[in-house]
Structure formats: C-alpha cells, structure tokens
C-alpha cells in the first residue's frame, strides 16, 4: 500500500500536500482500492469554502457514492478538470494525476491535527 512520505493524511483517507501557500487534496491508495472502479467524480466548485471534516467532494464507484471530506478548511482555488473525462485517474494515480482540488487554507494550524505517514500506515494496517 502506497503511503507517500511527504504527505499528511486524514482518518477518512484523504491526503494533503503543502505546495507553498496552497494545499492539494486527494484520496489515498487505500481509499481507491476500497472504492474499486471509480466512474464519476464531483469536485467542489472553485471559490467554494470547505471546512475540515465536512464533505467537499463526491466520488462514485459503480456500486456506491462516497463523500470526500476536506482535511482542513479553506477556499478552493483549483479543481482537477481531467477527472470529468478520466475519473479512473483516481484509481490509477491517486497521489499524482488523480488530485481533486487545491485550496488556500484558512487555518494552517489544522494541518497539525492530521496524521503523519507512519500514523496513517498504522491506521490502514489494522
């Protein structure tokens, strides 16, 4: 199970990467494996306010729709347009081309509450 070391993780299987002033959010390898074939993704709208622990996006596999919770709060600045034509990127490259949205954090301290790669690995090993 891939758990990149430069990211931080939410208990609900989202990852977050700090890219200067912004952060990028996606779902983990564990999440995409649980979901299986992802056929549709509904990222948030650019400009939307998202809050830590609240649904920011929806991802649908053949059998079920899954809520994606924003790991921290902020304003959405970009969304991954590729996902509308290629939702499968969430399965094949969840940490790279399958990124879902970027945002400007409103409270950087919220990053501290997230899990380290080791803590996340321990969580999914259970």
């Amino acid at each position, binding site marked *: 199970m891939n758990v990149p070391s430069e990211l931080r993780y939410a208990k609900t299987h989202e990852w977050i990467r700090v890219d200067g002033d912004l952060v990028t959010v996606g779902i983990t390898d564990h999440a995409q494996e649980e979901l*299986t074939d992802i056929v549709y993704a509904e990222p948030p709208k650019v400009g939307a306010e998202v809050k830590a622990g609240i649904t920011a996006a929806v991802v649908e596999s053949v059998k079920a729709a899954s809520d994606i919770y924003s790991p921290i709060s902020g304003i959405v600045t970009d969304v991954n347009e590729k996902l509308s034509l290629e939702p499968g990127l969430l399965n094949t490259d969840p940490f790279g081309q399958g990124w879902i949205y970027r945002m400007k954090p409103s409270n950087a301290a919220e990053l501290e509450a997230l899990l380290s790669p080791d803590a996340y690995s321990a969580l999914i090993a259970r």
Partner: protein
Amino acid sequence: MKDSNSPKHSPLEAAHIASGARMIEFGGWLMPLQYKGIIEEHSAVRSSSGMFDISHMGEVTVGGPGALEWLETLLTNRVGKLPVGRGQYTLMLDQLGGVIDDLIIYRTDESVYFLVINAACREVDLNWMRSLLPDDGSVVLTDEGDAYAAISIQGPHSAELLQLLFPGFVLPGRNGIAPIPNISSRGKDVTPFLARTGYTGEDGFELFIPALEGLPLWERLVQLGVKPCGLGARDTLRLEMGYPLNGSDLSRSRSPLEAGLGRFVALDDNQKGNFSGRKFLESQRSAGLPSLLTPLRLSIPGPPLRPHYPVIFDHSVVGETSSGALSPSLGESIAMAYLPPAISNPGTTVEIEVRGKRYPATVCSLPFYKKP
C-alpha cells in the same frame, strides 16, 4: 442456537474467497459482488464470456397429474405452450395483481416442471405455492433449492465453452433445457440440467448441478479460462437490457402490465383460464394503467443513476428511479422509473435529481444496449 439472520453460504464460496472476491449479503446469502472489478467483468460477458454463481436461486419441481392445470392458475404466461425441453419467463402474482416473483419455468418431462425462483423470495414463493396446492395430492411440489448449486455462463463464446466442457453434446436452442451428461448425481436425487437462458442479453447457459458438483465444475471452468463475475456485473448487464429486477423494478405494488411485461401475461390467449391476479389485471387494463416502467437516460454527462432518485416533469416530482447505473457498455447513465403513461413516450424530456441537483434526461426505448 442457529442465528436465523446469518446469511446462507453458497456451495461455491471457497472458490470466491480463494480468488479474493468482495462478498456481500444478497437475498439472505453471502455472494460475490465482484472479483477484479465490475466493469472488467461486465465487459468480459459482452465480449467473450463470464460466469456467475447463481446457487442462491431457488429450484422447485412440480409434478403429478394435476401439475399443468395447477401451474396455469399460479402463473401469468401460458404454461401449456411449453413442449418438453423448453422454458419460458413468467410471473407469479398475488390476488391484487402485484408481483410476488418473476421466474423461469421449464418443462423437463411430460408432467414435470422445474421452476427457478429468486433468492430473496424463496420462502415467500414456497409459502404462497404451498398455500394454493390442492388437497388431493394431484400436484407434488418439491423444494430442491439446497440440493442444487448453479452456475450461469454468459457471453458470445459461451456455446464454444459448453462444447469444450461437454464434447459431442448437442446444446439446446434458446430457452431449451436438457439433462447434463457426465455429471454424476452423487449423493442427491436431483437431475443436473443445462438451460440456455440468462439475464444478460448474451447467449448463455445456466447449469443446475447437485451441490457437491458445484465447486469442481466451477474450478474446471476457471481452468478453461472463464472469468468469474459477481452480482455487480450481473446488475449492470441486466439493466442495459432493460430486464427488471424483483424487489426494485418489480414489486407487490405494481402489476406486470405497468412493468411492460404484458407479453408474458396471457390475458388474450383463449387457452389460458383463470390465474391469480387475472381479474385485477383485466380491470386495470380497462381502466387504463396508472403508471408505466419507463427507460431513461441522462441527456448530458453526469453521475451514475441509482434507485430512488426523484424524476421531475414540468416542475413536479412524478416518480422515482427503481433501478439505475452508469452503463459500462454505453458510458452513459441509465435508469428505469414508473412514470405516468402520458410522459412515458420516447423523446419526452424529464429531470432526475441527484444529491439535490437536477440533470436533464430523456425517455428512451429498450433495450438500452443494442448488440452491434
């Protein structure tokens, strides 16, 4: 003490676990939802072949001198049309014309019939049938569900595969049924059968074998290269054909006429007498059907459709989806919903609400998927 709520286990379960299948509970049974992936399994059935464990389905044998006459009063289609070695799709209704179950009945001998019923309503079906049996012993009903395992092999290459499995065996034609050669009915007094029927819209065969023969047969098929497919693919395949699912598209609250299954209800056949629900259907037909099961597709790219999404016409909610999926073969979202007949004509535009957002959709015609 046995927990009556724990799910039943298929005789083929060991094979599913060994191949890493994701299991779910369906109709009181623990069954494989998928193995490698629903889309891959669906595509295998459309392009070559796949196989489904259908051991959860029920099998009932009806025999005795009064069998045919009794079955005609139980089922909507005319059973008397069946020659020996043929099956037909039919429905079992309650007195108010509601669907108890849809099923296939096969005539396996002069006065012997083999019924394959849905897993989720095995008990209900059997209780209903038993309550209607005549007292004089002229009709003998046997529940064979636990004696059989069953495998459905579907896809354009399925006939070739069956020939490899049974060299020299003359395969029955569509809807035909024949006893299977070279499988010993060890341990149980049930006849192994092969029926050329299915729920996918492809050529295919359903094999009903003694429970102990199930796992060896499944493993032989795996060695022949047949892809195991789960309930997820079974659902997307049948929906693409517009085949209804009991419990979603069929229920006690809708008649088969509303479901568009009138061609399986022998109301205008002068050799068909009374049957459960007949009077209700006749008056429903005279009065005008209150709804029709209507095929819909999203007109723009959008989310997968699922059951219970509201359907809106002219700013009012006029129904809800009973089934839905993102069709793997078409790459479009499709659904079925009971709608007022006035808006069920192909080309009518409606909206379907998904998570509070409304998407335009069009009434289309069946099947959604037309073979190339």
